[in-house]
Every structure is written in structure tokens, then in C-alpha cells.
């Protein structure tokens, strides 16, 4: 069982899809000659040629829209956005077109397309390159949204995303491209929409995804030291959300903490909090606790940025404060 980085996992999945299905092609800004801003598609141009590895002009709206059209025409495009913050430029195409096309055509058209985009803060890219808009996109019916936190999920989710017949937003935590973990040699897929109980525990259910799940892993020891056994759930998918796994866990722990490294207000965790309150509030012995990054534009300065970004101390402090530990 080899240990590989998330970058290598993504590369493996994309390479397989390109080899196995001629309808799959990749397009985006500087993914070919340059090799991709985060080097995920490095070497692909030479191997697959410019017909299938398409460098685009800096026109997010146009090439995302063209991806939707190509998918409606029967191809399986994988589109790379250089940052999920740039999804804003293409929001009309993603939301109005990709999200609505099937419904407004009465089911006549499908859009089998993946949009990959690095997400999140922590690398000092300042206000316009550090946001986490997968949380906004998760609101749109007709679009699936996933985000891996480790190499196994990156590989398994990407395999499923490319085979899916719907638009899938594939958010890649920018801080984790070089993060290593084990991946089995045998072929596997991760079903879109299934959360993962990444650490078994008894006392508190803590839910997160992407970089937040990495922060949670770092918190386990600190929580153990103050006598708390946390059960960790990695969502992996923001749309749909696996409420069944969350509810199953809180039936055991009776406590729920929701951790997001995106800004706290208006994010996916607010939605989960409201839903769990409605669906399974009777199982809770205390308030649902939300931990998120501070509600400010992302600052460039390293000390300021780290202060804004959710870390394991924020999680620990919130748990102590809200549960009187």
C-alpha cells in the first residue's frame, strides 16, 4: 500500500480517465504548456496532445460555459479553475447554466462535467485567492460538490466524479496538495455523497471536510488529554450531505461540533446545524457548536492569516467553553 500525495492521487485519477475514455478531456488556464498552477496536470500535454489537454484564454466564463456545452454535446470535460475564488467570474455559467440546464429542459440534457478548483486559505494569497466558495456552490440543486482531505478520498472521489453524469465541483484544499497518505493498490471508488467516520470515539461528534478534517486529526490528541474521546466525520461531499452518518454518530455521542475552515457565517455548517436541529435535535444533550474562520476578508500577513484561520486550539476552546469542560 503506497503512500502518495493528494497531487499524485488526483494525477492518477485524471490519467486513468484520459487513458480509458476518449470523451474525457481537460481544459483550463495554463494546464498544458505550463503544467498547471499546482502541477496536477504536469506532463499531460506531451502524453495526450493539445486536442485533449486544452490551454484556455483567461476567460473563466467562456471556458466553463464551453465545458457545459461540450458536456451537453456528449463529452466529459474536466475543467480546472486556478482558484475557487475565480468561480465567481463563471458563476452565471455554473449556477444558471450547469445547475439548471437539466431541469429547465425537462430532463432532456445532462452535463457530465467536473470543475476542479483549489480552495481555502493558509498560503498567504490574500483576500481574493483564499476563499472557500464550495460552500456557496453546495446550495445549488443540480450540482454535486465534493472535497477530499486525503489521498485515498482524492483518488476515489475523482474516479467517481468523472464517471458521474452531472456537474461536479471538485474542491481541492490548496494547503494539502503535498500531504501524503496511504492508498491501496487495488482499484476502488468513493461514492459521491457518502461521509466517512475517520476516527471512532464516544463523547463528541465532530464534523468537518477538506482542510478542516486535517485540523481535526491534529486535535484528537489534545482532546484525549482533557479526557474527551471525539468521533470524527469527514463529510467528503457538501452536496448531497450524508445526514444519516451524522445522525447515527450523535445518537451515540449526543454532542455535535461543526468545524469549517471557511468563514463561519453563511457556510455549509450553518446549514448542517439547522438541519440536525430539525431532524435529530432530540438526540442532543447540549448546543450544536460551530467553529469557523473569522468573518473578515483574508489578510496577507502570515500572523494575521493564521489568527483568522480555524485551528485545533479554536476547536478545543469552543468545546471547553460551550460544554463547560
Amino acid at each position, binding site marked *: 500500500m503506497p503512500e502518495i500525495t493528494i497531487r499524485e492521487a488526483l494525477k492518477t485519477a485524471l490519467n486513468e480517465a484520459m487513458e480509458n475514455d476518449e470523451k474525457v*478531456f481537460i481544459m483550463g488556464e495554463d494546464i498544458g504548456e505550463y503544467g498547471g498552477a499546482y502541477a496536477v496536470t504536469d506532463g499531460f500535454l506531451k502524453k495526450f496532445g493539445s*486536442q485533449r489537454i*486544452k490551454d*484556455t*484564454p483567461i*476567460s473563466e*466564463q*467562456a*471556458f*466553463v*460555459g*464551453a*465545458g*457545459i*456545452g*461540450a*458536456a*451537453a*454535446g*456528449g*463529452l466529459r*470535460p474536466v475543467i480546472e479553475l486556478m482558484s475557487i475564488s475565480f468561480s465567481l467570474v463563471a458563476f*452565471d*455559467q455554473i449556477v*444558471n*447554466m450547469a445547475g439548471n*440546464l*437539466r*431541469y*429547465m*429542459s*425537462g*430532463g*432532456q*440534457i*445532462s*452535463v*457530465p462535467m467536473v470543475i476542479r478548483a483549489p480552495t481555502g486559505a493558509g498560503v498567504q494569497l490574500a483576500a481574493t485567492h483564499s476563499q472557500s466558495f464550495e460552500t456557496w456552490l453546495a446550495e445549488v*440543486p*443540480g450540482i*454535486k460538490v465534493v472535497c477530499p482531505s486525503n489521498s485515498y478520498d482524492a483518488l476515489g472521489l475523482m474516479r467517481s466524479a468523472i464517471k458521474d*453524469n*452531472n456537474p461536479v465541483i471538485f474542491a481541492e484544499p490548496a494547503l494539502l496538495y503535498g500531504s501524503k497518505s496511504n492508498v491501496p493498490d487495488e482499484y476502488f471508488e468513493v461514492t459521491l455523497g457518502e461521509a466517512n467516520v475517520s476516527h471512532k470515539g464516544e463523547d463528541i461528534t465532530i464534523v468537518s471536510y477538506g482542510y478542516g478534517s486535517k485540523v481535526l486529526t491534529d486535535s484528537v490528541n489534545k482532546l484525549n488529554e482533557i479526557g474527551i474521546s471525539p468521533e470524527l466525520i469527514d463529510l467528503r461531499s457538501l452536496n448531497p450531505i450524508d445526514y444519516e452518518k451524522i445522525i447515527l454518530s450523535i445518537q451515540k455521542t449526543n454532542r455535535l461540533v461543526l468545524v469549517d475552515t471557511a468563514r463561519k457565517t453563511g457556510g455549509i455548517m450553518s446549514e448542517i446545524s439547522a438541519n440536525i436541529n430539525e431532524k435529530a435535535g432530540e438526540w442532543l444533550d447540549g448546543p450544536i457548536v460551530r467553529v469557523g474562520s473569522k468573518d473578515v476578508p483574508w489578510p496577507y500577513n502570515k500572523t494575521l492569516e493564521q489568527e483568522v484561520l480555524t485551528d485545533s486550539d479554536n476547536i478545543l476552546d469552543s468545546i471547553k467553553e460551550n460544554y463547560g469542560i
Partner: protein
Amino acid sequence: MTSKEKIVKNKSLQTNGSGKIAKKSNFSSSNLSSLKKNEHLNLFRKMYLIRQFENACGQNYANGNIRGFLHLYSGQEATGVGAISSLKDSDYIVTHYRDHGHALARGLDVNRSMAELFGKKTGLSKGKGGSMHLFDASKKFMGGHAIVGGQLPLAAGLALSQQYENKNAITTCFFGDGSTNQGIYHETLNLASVWNLPILFFLENNKYGMGSSIERVRAGGLDFFPAMDTYEIPSMEVDGMDVIAVKEATKIAREKIIQNKKPFFIESKTFRFVGHSYADGQKYRHQDEVKQWEQKDPILVYPKKLIDMKISTNDEINKIKIEIDEIISDAVRFANESEEPNLDEIYDDILAE
């Protein structure tokens, strides 16, 4: 030298054929005689079908059977019918929200089109799309789209799929003058040109983006086609009230796209006789202008020409009108009698299996 002359002169200097402007197509007896009688009558039949469909839509909006926004194509029939008559079944069509004309010109089912406007289960999109979102994927009619200009990259993507799979086919994208001030218009022209996509950009210049005259909102004058030089896309202007001229122009454009493996741009000068949508009081334009354009009404001018040239007779034209009137009243009856969608269909058609 006027600026216009300058542009034309510059074009004549182009040697790569990229920015060359074909001469404006005109309604003349020579190109009239290039078609068979039956083809002429079919063009008239389609235009009259659209006009009567739109008239019926207006009536059924007034009596409450159709709701939401309703944008009628009345006046622009020669453009849609002429253009689509020169396309092949293998070509994709993408259009804007004033889409009834293109749908009917493509041969979408009249009953199901009307039922869609009535929001019925039997509608093309099962009542989920309405007037602005007519689709029939089986006829490669990929929709009416309602964000101004938003359909342009969709069309570029469909053309990309045709290029990718070496199909001997093109995508035609209709859009109005209102969309030309959107960034996506310029982005798509650029993308299509650098990727040599088999796409026909078809501008229906009816002079008004909702209530805004293009004279008030556009830098660069009233003609759009000269600006195509910037994108190295060959372009052509055509009289959009002249169905034969539009048909011929589109035929040439399609041949050029297939032959040169490059996009093409047609600017069709046309006019809508009615408001932007049904509830438009048209305060922004003078009725004299409308009357002046009504002189070119293709529903009147074209059959008169056919009769004058002895290609057809008054009786034949009237027979077609009676046939079409019946088709329209059948469609309204079909839409009226069709069932409402079931409530449990709300959750259908969001995701594909």
C-alpha cells in the same frame, strides 16, 4: 475618408480571408428563382406559422393561460426561418429567450411548444421551462436561454464537441444586439476564433435591448459586423426582413465554416413589431419607426412577391393560411386540454442517473 470606408478598405487588405465581408445579400428576382416553388411555399408556411403562433400566445397571455415573461418573435420571422432553413439536421441550434420562432422554424412540435407555454405536462420541457426555455434535444435544439448572452459559451462548447469528434456539422447561436455589451460575448468570440470552432454567430440586431436603443448603449455605431475583424472572424451583414437573403447568407456561412474550419458571423438587421415582452408600453420608440418597418413585414411582402412573380397564386397562399390557422387552434386546444404536471414531478429532472 469616413471611418466606415476605412474599415472596409482595411478589410480588403486582409489576405488571410479572416475578416472579409461578403456583400450584403439583397432580395432580388435572381435569388428568388434559385428556389423551387415548394421551397418558397415552405418558407412562407413557417413564417406564417410563427406569426400566428405568436398572435395566439398574445391572446392566451391576455386571458391568463400563459404567465411569466412572454417575448414574441413577430417581425423577425424572416431571420429565424431563413437561417434555420439552411441548416442541417446534424447542426446544433442554441438561442435566446425570444425563442418560439427558432423552435418552430426547426420543426419542434407545435402542440408541445404551446403546451410548454401553458406550463403543461405535455410541454417540451414538461412545463418546467416555459416560454424562455424551449428545448428539443432530439432535434439538436439546445434551448432558449434567458441570461442575456449566457447561451454563447454553451454554443461554443457544443461546437467544440462537434470539432472534437470530427463531425461534419456546425452549431448556430442566435443572440440579440442587447447581448453584445456583455463580457461573455467578447470572450466567446475570442475563444471560438482561437480554437477554430465550427460555430455560426448569428446576431439578430433588432435595434433594441429591451427598451434601450443600441444608439444609446453601444460605442462604435450601429453596425456590429465590422468589429469582427478584431477577432479574425469573417462576417456578413444581411437584410433580416428578407427571408431569401437570410437563407442564402446562412447557406454561404455554413459552407465557409465547414470548408475553412473557422467560425463565421452574420448580422441580420431586423425589427420586432411588438414590445420587448407582452407588458411593454414601448415608450422608448416612436410608432413611426414601427410603421416604417412594418412596410417590410415578411408575412405581407414575401407572398406578394411570390404572386407578382407568378411563382404562386393568391389561392395557394390563402390555402396555406387556412391550414396554419387550424394547426394553431389545434395547438391551443391541445395545450388547454393537457394535464398539469403532477406535484411529485417537482423533484424529477434535477440530477441525471
